[in-house]
């Protein structure tokens, strides 16, 4: 379980995040929505320990992530908005390289890579050079990289940005699958697609979580309507 407590962050004078708190249980896929510049990416980078918060704490299974960053990162999968991969490698060699770098023992690498490839439906491009892939396929490779070692926490930044409709659905299915074993946090603007598989949507406004809309117990259309309303400031 991931707990985010009172996170605050500012770029010099500009306050970006103030008192952000929420928690994500295993098996949950939480979406963070908000306007451009609301601080979604910043929040995810803080959760990925790529930035240090001004105050607040991140607890993963009760342990302070900022005090033990290496242990926390070993349970973390992070995908950034624009996939940054080694273009000179094939999908296979890239995923193997990443698994090795993350410290996976050699004997388990093949299984891990195979699993990630299967979930992300990369079998067809497994031996293809990354620079020959489409943007969507690259995003899938980055997703496979993030979920490679079955992390407990997955952070997916703008996961659907730049994808066409079939690809969004495909990625949505992947995220749903990943959410069975991880606490998933995604950001994005594609609310109609996100509400299809998100279990909760947090609306980030003025640097804090202005509303939390759960999907449990209501129809997806109703869930979408509530999220839309929350985004427009209706609470």
């Amino acid at each position: 379980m991931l707990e985010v407590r009172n996170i605050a962050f500012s770029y010099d004078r500009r306050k970006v995040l103030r008192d952000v708190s929420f928690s994500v249980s295993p098996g949950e896929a939480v979406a963070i929505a908000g306007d451009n510049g609301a601080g979604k990416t910043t929040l995810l980078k803080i959760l990925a320990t790529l930035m240090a918060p001004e105050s607040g704490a991140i607890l993963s299974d009760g342990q302070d992530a900022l005090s033990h960053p290496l242990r926390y990162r070993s349970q973390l999968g992070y995908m950034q908005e624009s996939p940054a991969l080694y273009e000179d490698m094939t999908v296979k060699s890239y995923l193997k390289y990443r698994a090795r770098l993350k410290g996976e023992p050699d004997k388990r690498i093949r299984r891990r890579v195979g699993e990630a490839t299967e979930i992300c439906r990369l079998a067809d491009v497994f031996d293809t050079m990354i620079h020959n892939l489409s943007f969507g396929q690259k995003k899938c490779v980055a997703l496979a990289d993030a979920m490679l070692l079955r992390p407990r926490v997955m952070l997916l930044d703008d996961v659907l940005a730049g994808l066409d409709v079939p690809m969004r659905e495909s990625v949505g299915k992947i995220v749903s699958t990943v959410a069975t074993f991880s606490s998933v946090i995604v950001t994005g603007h594609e609310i109609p697609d996100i509400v299809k598989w998100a279990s909760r949507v947090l609306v980030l406004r003025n640097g804090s979580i202005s509303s939390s809309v759960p999907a449990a117990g209501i129809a997806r259309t109703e869930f979408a309507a509530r999220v839309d309303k929350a985004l427009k400031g209706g609470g």
Partner: protein
Amino acid sequence: MGPVRVTFRRTFGLARGLYTTALATAGFLSWSALAFAFGLEEAEGLRVELAPLWAVSLAPALPFLAAILGMDVWSDERRSGRIDVLLSSPVRERDLVFGKFLGVWAITLLNIVIALVSSLAFVRMFAPALLEDVGFVSFLPGVCALAVQGMLWCAVAVAASAWFMNSAAAATTTIALLSVIPRGAWYALVKWSGAGRSAFGDMPLDAQVFDFASGFVSTGALVSCFILAVAALLFASKAVAALRCVGRGGRGFLATTWFAVFLGAVATVLAVGLAYRLDIGLDLPLGKRAMRFSARTRDILAESRGTVTVTAFLERGDPRFRPLSHFLKALSAEADAMCGVRIGVRYVDPALDLGEAGRLDREGVRRDSLVFEHGGRIVGTLHLEDDCGERACMSVIERVSLPFRRSCVYWTKGHGEASFDDYGPFGLSNISRDLALDGYGNKTIDLTSGDAIADDCALVVVAGAKNEFSAAEMNRLRNYLEGRGGRSEGGRLLVLLDSAESGGLSTLLSEWGIRPMAASLPNARTLSGTDVVVRDFATNHVVSAPFVGQQMVLDDPVSFGESAAAESASAADRRQYSPLVGVDGTCLAAAVEWGEGGSKLALRPTRIVAVGDTGFVQNAPLRKYANANRDFFLNAVKYLSGRDVMTQSGVEPDLLVSGMDRDERTRFAICSGVAFPSAMFLLLSVLVMSRRRKA
């Protein structure tokens, strides 16, 4: 598989697939090969060793290679955004930095090995004579030196790459830090500061490689390289870690990070200072001619006292400068280690140190010389074209800095001999003054008195006796020569003969193996009708060996042959008869060394030198002729008195002779410096292209 190994493999593999690497490799090979070819031409016929010359040719190009290979390792990750993916992995920054550093260093080492193999191949092709005495092992210290220096350069390149997002900025900074600033500072120091020239005569970075490649390892420099490389890698990892410190929340982390960098810098400075303070010079056993000094040299350095300043009076651009500097530094370090004489080393460039060069010029010192100063005055000079290796240098140092030993030259009197205190044209006052300068006292001895010859007698000189020695006098001389009367060693006698029967000494000399002859000289080349110009000097004897190529003038000299006395000597006796100088096969001076058994011969032999003329060192001829008469006499005295350090040769470097003519040199330079690097570039480019096409 650890993250270091994974990152190393990735960096190494990536570099293999880049055109940049192919270009950097070709540039490095071309630069180093052309520098080597140029160095070979400059060093032709000089005392320069091949392996250090090769290593020094590569050294200036190495920072450029490291800069280009290392410029992208971090800046590309930052530009592409992959840095976030890397930093979100459960890997320490230092592991990533170290892995990337190892990848860059491995490529650099590969380049050094390729340069070595290609250089050796082209040398074997164009100048096989150079490799006759030089094995592959001789180059290993040079490779190690370049590897150590390359390690530091690669670490700095990786650190610069971690600091800059722009590759060109990283490369430029690396080149500035590693090449432009240190070389520019050194050049400015040498150009405008006399003190700087004395302290840093040679470019320290190149000198370090040269010394190491010559087999003389400075532990201070070695440890400093390691410390600085570690510091650079620490800085790189901190620079990468600082990327997380965006925003106000990272300020505290940023402050502690840079405080750690500051502490690291302070610790580095202290550690480097300590390393140089505790510097130890090591001789590598790998090199053919590591700077190991002979036992005799070490003895002289240990026994000598005072300070001798050795000034290298030649231009820095001279190819002999670096080997000479290396030798002098090693000699000075050896002297410090032996706790005896202190040897200070200075460099005077005739083109830059005008004041000091003018002083040396006024003192009559030729350029390209080693000048030895003791007590504020010049006590010896050695010209680089002559013998100025360990043997000759130690000869000078020994002469001026050994503690004063009371030893006297005893001149016989009463038989019409020339006198050492006679200031007239036929006197020997000039030569006796030179003996006094060398630390000898001059005394007369009256053999007619019954007293024993004093213990401080270094040798007895009979300078042109005209009257017969009495039987008693002869007996005293014989007893002296045979070491009787409580003496612990055989006697030493220098005889100058004006005629074969001079003073009746021919009998005595014949007993010891030297037979004076009255025969006139056939085909004598003369200056004034009776003078004989001597050009033939025996090269196998300590007295005459230094005079090859010079000339002595003798006035109607007596000649010598070997007597039959040796045949009647007992089997236990050892005798060595040596003609020293001659004309057309006729010996005009001879030396004999004779003792009982090998040990006595080696330690306490009887020594006699006979010269067939007295006048050659009289005041008038010494003023008249600019020749070797004076030095020959002094050398004979030195030999007889036991100060014959010149017999103990040290490790003398050979001359570098490639045997290439101008056309072959050009072909060598073009093949090794242009054609081969171009071919390498094409080959690597094809490999890169094929890999990409296959992909």
